């Protein structure tokens, strides 16, 4: 019989009225890579956070090495050899890499932290797995790939035997992801057991020994990799077959509608400062901006839409200079914008569906009467949009805070599409929404293109960029590292450009130390 190192049975977890996990079942064998997959909101991350003791379970049982663990906390989880690399790195930016690694488990000499001993211990792990990290740098000075390695080293030094990786590849290029898979393989050969959370089926098929599928908080089953296929997994994940490859409308680009010329703007990190980017967008085409998160895409979008000061260069829309105008003025000139973070900029979660739907047209004559809002026409238009964009719930008076990610995003899309414009800036339009909503949002964007609107599409999802765009611009560290026509684009050459193109020896590829 194979030994189960982790057994989770009939787990229940509610957050208020939300049933995050309804029937959670999961077991992990020693020395296997076990993938946990499902759509956004399926409960996979929650399951693993429960195993790591970040929330108490509302029902069910968790056993590690056959021993029942009650009142689990991260501390107890760590003591039982469980380590987790979170989707958002749990690193304190203003502390050094070394301080972060030893946090909570500091070796001490008297009352003082023994940094020399700590350095020695940590270096041993770094060398054993050939993971290059700079111990003295502060975390905000290192790259995403390196931060992820720091996280892995951190849990290894804490004696982790079970390693949970929560969507680790979301922030990596395909090439960096391959290096991560090598590390995972090394860890497995070393006897560690790995839980790999993902919703990318091709990755899952590549790395797993077994796969557990969850849907809407329910356990759908566990299969061996040899006995399944991507399409079968997709069916288990969403309950029906989906066709994300929608047919691309042929582009018939017209005049140049928007021109970005030698744009420079500030950035929160050194690598996200935009330094001299130029490109054009023509009417009726989709220009895709690809890049790894944090390479200046967000800053570029903010500069174009008037949310961040342009330090040098210009943006023209429809022949008019809109450089550093206020967002309101820019919108009046015909730009609409789906912001990348709907909760921060896209929506007011304390207001109702109708208020959010018509926020950008509040000054429209149709919706106001002198200084008052015209409730009848606002309600009528809201109902139209709710029907047209299939927003649920359908009551326009519903508070936004009770909506799911997908429906909330549809409201942002509905508002921007219904506002008349000639350029749509769509930043991460399908981030964090379910597959059904992804399909409909993508086809809406296609329709806009057919209507002759110029579209800038920013996405971290290469599959999305390739399936929607006509031309692709790749951004790396605030510069354009390449422009490709979609005919010639594939995940490999885009991935290479996302890492800066030529100089591949620098970032992320430090992992190659493994082969040396």
């Amino acid at each position, binding site marked *: 019989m194979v030994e189960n190192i982790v057994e989770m049975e009939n787990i229940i977890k509610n957050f208020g009225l939300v049933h995050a996990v309804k029937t959670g079942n999961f077991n992990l064998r020693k020395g296997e890579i076990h993938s946990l997959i499902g759509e956004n909101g399926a409960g996979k991350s929650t399951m693993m956070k429960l195993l790591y003791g970040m929330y108490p379970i509302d029902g069910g049982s968790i056993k590690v090495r056959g021993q029942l663990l009650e009142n689990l906390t991260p501390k107890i989880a760590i003591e039982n050899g469980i380590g987790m690399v979170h989707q958002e790195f749990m690193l304190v930016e203003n502390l050094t890499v070394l301080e972060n690694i030893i946090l909570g488990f500091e070796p001490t000499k008297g009352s003082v932290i023994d940094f020399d001993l700590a350095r020695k211990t940590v270096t041993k792990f770094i060398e054993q797995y050939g993971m290059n990290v700079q111990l003295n740098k502060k975390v905000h000075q290192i790259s995403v790939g390196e931060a992820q390695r720091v996280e892995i080293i951190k849990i290894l030094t804490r004696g982790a035997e079970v390693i949970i990786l929560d969507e680790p590849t979301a922030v990596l290029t395909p090439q960096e992801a391959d290096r991560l898979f090598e590390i995972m393989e090394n860890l497995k050969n070393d006897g560690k057991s790995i839980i790999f959370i993902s919703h990318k089926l091709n990755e899952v098929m590549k790395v797993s020994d077994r796969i557990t599928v969850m849907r809407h908080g329910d356990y759908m089953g566990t299969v061996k990799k040899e006995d399944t296929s991507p399409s079968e997994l997709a069916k288990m994940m969403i309950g029906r077959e989906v066709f994300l490859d929608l047919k691309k409308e042929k582009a018939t680009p017209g005049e140049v509608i928007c021109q970005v010329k030698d744009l420079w703007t*500030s950035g929160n990190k050194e690598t996200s*400062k935009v330094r001299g980017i130029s490109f054009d967008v023509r009417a009726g085409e989709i220009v895709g901006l690809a890049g790894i998160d944090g390479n200046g895409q967000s800053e570029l979008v903010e500069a174009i839409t008037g949310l961040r000061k342009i330090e040098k260069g210009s943006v023209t829309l429809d022949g008019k200079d809109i450089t550093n105008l206020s967002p309101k003025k820019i919108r009046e000139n015909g730009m609409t914008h789906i912001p990348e973070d709907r909760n921060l900029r896209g929506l007011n979660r304390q207001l109702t569906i109708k208020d959010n739907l018509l926020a950008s047209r509040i000054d429209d004559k149709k919706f106001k009467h002198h200084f008052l809002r015209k409730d009848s026409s606002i309600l009528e238009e809201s109902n139209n949009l709710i029907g047209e964009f299939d927003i649920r719930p359908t009551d326009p008076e519903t508070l936004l805070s009770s909506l799911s990610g997908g429906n909330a995003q549809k409201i942002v899309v509905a508002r921007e599409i219904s506002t008349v414009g000639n350029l749509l800036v769509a930043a991460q339009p399908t981030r964090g929404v379910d597959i059904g909503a992804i399909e409909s949002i993508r086809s809406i964007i296609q329709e806009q293109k057919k209507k002759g609107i110029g579209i800038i599409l920013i996405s971290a999802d290469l599959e999305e960029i390739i399936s929607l765009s006509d031309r692709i611009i790749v951004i790396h560290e605030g510069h354009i590292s390449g422009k490709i026509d979609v005919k010639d684009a594939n995940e490999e050459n885009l991935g290479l450009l996302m890492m800066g193109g030529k100089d591949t020896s620098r970032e992320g590829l430090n992992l190659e130390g493994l082969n040396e």
Partner: protein
Amino acid sequence: MDLSSILNASLIYATFRSATPIIYAALCASLTQQADILNIGTEGIMLTGAFAAVAISYTTGSWVLAIIVAMLAGLLMAAIMAVANIKYGADICAIGMGINMFAIAITKFLMTSVFGMRGTFSNPDIVAIPRVVIPGLESIPFLNEVFNGWALTEWFVIVFIVLMWFLLFKTKWGLHLRSVGQYPMAAQTAGINVTSMKYQAILISGLIGGLAGAHLSLGYSRLFTENMTNNRGFMGVAAMFFGNAHPVWTSVGCLVFGLTDSIGARLQAYGIAAQLVLMLPYIVTIVVLSISMVSKYYTKKRRQSSLLLIR
């Protein structure tokens, strides 16, 4: 106006003397700030400590006991803040201001009801914190003027600043505290009990605030008056912002306040309007805070700019 009678050797001690109560208050605020909790209640904690110290010193005649009870009184006030903020989610500024107003009222009430005094409580039976006389120093005029006759708690504050620095940046507890303040989730996943760390920060800060009060009423003076902290707690909070909650830089901020306070007192002798002089520390507070905020803003902007290469 004779400049040398304003800027002379005794100004050094005068500056340090008026800065010390603020330094204690600022360290009280710094400790919680490291855990990302703004301790607006510093003023009230300090005032309670000042009253408790005088009351105990008067009734028992022991300044040691007085300091201990003052610290416990500070702890009690801080405990109210901690429970309200951490357990019941009350806004820290609201509860802090509540503590400040409560402290003014309760000290006034106890002074009239227990000691039958109004306004100022001063009595020869109140035992002050002893002053340190260094033998042999009398013969050296300059050093004698600067260093002799400091209250014990004035010497101790120097040790205390170093101690705080050591605690925050060299010990395990300090690393845990800072990680809780900067990224509580990261601390939690490292197995650190965030709630417990926050309680500890507020409670220890209460002890320091109580000590600040005891020094004010028994070291800096030997009496208690209504609202005697007179915004020193807030000046401590301002200095904490100035020094970014780093014990050393925060104390430097306090010395600036102390300097204006003592120069102001001397200017008064030259017929400069008393009201104007009394405004000085507050004007300096505003100026210092504005300068530190503006410089932080520009540093951040410069750091983010794409036109400058910082390597």
